[in-house]
């Protein structure tokens, strides 16, 4: 899981600046099909130049939300404002948005350059300007040598670039991307993620990306909106979404997490003390979570934040003993399934920093599991 920081990020990001005006505003947007509410009361501000990802599983309403921005669906309730303009009643051909379709939707009877010029022709631009802009965008996506090919003579990655170029060439206020990398194989997807980010920074257009791939969302976005059952459950930077999820759904959806049930026993300054019977211990966690003594909560611990060793080391506030039950070697890291003395099942990952595995605990071995007070976070019951 990587988060790239772009060089152009200002000191205070617009979403943290109370003065900043949102570029795209969704105000209580809902959409029902028959009796089914696909999108429920989404309120969201997206700022100029953002690369915003709508992340969620299939059927969570993210594509419907995107299609409402493009004008293919009409909201049942709520307003969509782009650059301050209400989009109600505006047809897709009349909106300052362009969309890159999941299937790419390239016109099979037109060459690459005709596909890209299509939108510019509809605007009635002079022929010379169309040719110049098509040439520029082809160079940007490195497809100049393929200008005269038909879409079926291109590879998947090349088609993806043409689809991106066709949507970008009109210089929309808002570029909507529906699973832009979904049809590419893993290796190509990773390369293309960085390229997409680079292109976005270069053209400076606000991107809204729909994806079900959490890794893709983490890599691409300035901010992520996690969706579940038609609602946005959390909006934040990739870092916030991963390290400070507000709910078990978000914590589980992005990365994996150990959730250990417990009851609050008290607070000491910034630390909450939680008794976890499954761990057979009372743990300390740095948290602003408001909970009175006796309240049921859960301690959430990411697997990579637990240190594991045959002997205890100093510097950790929390420690339990566990037995290795399963080991899965992944190459860059190893995943351990452990059972603590109290009966809790924990998942721990270790980076494989050396090529030997002499020190790696074996199945059946007892190990010390330690973590600091800042390693975990608290979730409501």
């Amino acid at each position: 899981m990587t988060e790239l920081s772009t060089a152009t990020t200002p000191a205070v990001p617009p979403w943290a600046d109370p003065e900043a005006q949102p570029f795209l505003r969704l105000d209580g947007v809902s959409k029902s099909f028959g009796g089914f509410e696909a999108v429920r009361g989404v309120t969201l501000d997206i700022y100029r130049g953002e690369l915003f990802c709508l992340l969620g599983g299939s059927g969570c309403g993210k594509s419907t939300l995107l299609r409402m921005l493009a004008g293919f669906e009409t909201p049942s309730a709520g307003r969509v404002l782009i650059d301050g303009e209400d989009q109600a009643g505006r047809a897709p051909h009349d909106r300052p948005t362009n969309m890159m379709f999941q299937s790419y939707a390239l016109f099979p009877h037109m060459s690459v350059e005709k596909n890209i010029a299509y939108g510019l022709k509809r605007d009635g631009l002079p022929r010379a300007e169309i040719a110049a802009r098509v040439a520029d965008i082809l160079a940007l996506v490195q497809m100049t040598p393929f200008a005269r090919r038909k879409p079926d003579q291109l590879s998947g990655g090349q088609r993806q670039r043409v689809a991106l170029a066709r949507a970008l060439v009109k210089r929309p206020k808002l570029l909507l991307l529906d699973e832009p990398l979904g049809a590419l194989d893993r290796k190509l997807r990773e390369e293309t993620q960085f390229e997409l980010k680079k292109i976005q920074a270069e053209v400076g257009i606000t991107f809204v990306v729909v994806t079900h791939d959490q890794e893709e969302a983490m890599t691409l976005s300035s901010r992520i909106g996690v969706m579940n059952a038609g609602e946005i459950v959390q909006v934040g930077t990739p870092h916030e979404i991963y390290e400070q999820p507000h709910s078990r759904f978000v914590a589980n959806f992005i990365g994996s997490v150990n959730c250990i049930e417990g009851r609050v026993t008290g607070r000491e300054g910034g630390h909450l003390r939680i008794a976890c019977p499954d761990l057979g211990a009372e743990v300390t966690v740095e948290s602003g979570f408001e909970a009175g003594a006796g309240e049921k909560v859960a301690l959430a611990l990411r697997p990579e934040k637990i240190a594991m060793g045959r002997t205890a080391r100093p510097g950790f506030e929390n420690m339990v003993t566990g037995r290795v039950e399963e080991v899965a070697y992944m190459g860059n890291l190893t995943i351990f399934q452990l059972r603590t003395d109290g009966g809790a099942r924990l998942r721990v990952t270790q980076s494989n920093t050396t090529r030997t595995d002499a020190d790696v605990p074996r199945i059946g071995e007892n190990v010390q599991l330690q973590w600091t007070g800042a390693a975990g976070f608290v979730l409501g019951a």
Partner: protein
Amino acid sequence: MSARGLAGLRRAWSGRALVVAVPLLWLGLFFALPFLVVAKISLSELAIAMPPYLPLAEWADGALSIVLNFGNYLFLLSDGLYVAAYLESLKIAAISTLFTLLIGYPMAYVIAMARPDRRNLLLMLVVLPFWTSFLLRVYAWIGFLKSNGIINNALMALGLTDAPLQLIQTDIAVYIGITYTYLPFMILPLYANLSRLDRSHLEAAADLGARPLTTFLTVTLPQSAGGIVAGCMLVFIPAVGEFVIPALLGGPDTLMIGRVLWDEFFSNRDWPVASAVAVVMLLVLIGPILLLRRAQAREES
């Protein structure tokens, strides 16, 4: 290549040959052979005999004499009636094909864009007329078009016309008959083509700023060109040789080649000239068929 590979290849070959042989045999027996018979008759001379023409080859006094009579073809050219009939047939077929296209395209489009569960019902309605006899359906049009038929009675009842319009026994009646009869042949290939149209292409066009009409002209229409060509050929080719519709609905001056053929064969009993008419009709139709094949090949490449 190993012996086994060779044997396998030979086996594969014989399998393929069998698959090709069946339709080839069919075409040979029921198309090529009859055509050769017709071509042979077209080169012989008329005679009062059974059959009513002279044999091409004769064996007499130890000499084989073959007489090829091209007079029938020259006769077709010299008598303006035949040339006029060919041109008239092509004209009537072309205009009728245009009408079926103009009516059939929107119908096919609506069916292709309909909800999937409704498509089969709509398609069945298109094919439904085939459940009654072709002849009956053409007869039914007489009831509509004749002087005291349904259309004229309705027009007079509405006061739109005082005297009945002459509809039956005109070229218009023939256009109506052909258009009506052949409409499904236009709709079905167009539907097959349009139902494969990717809806996301239409959305992409709209997204890029195209109004619905522009989307239709720049995306839908070019992508359905194959269906248009196929539908037009399926209507045009049989319409050129149509006999029943002009005979029942057309007037005495509706001169289509099918009727000329009928008259030569059954009224004049001039089998050689009738055969020549048939051979020339085939040659005339080979042009559009080649055009169709070229269009299909281009679409595939």
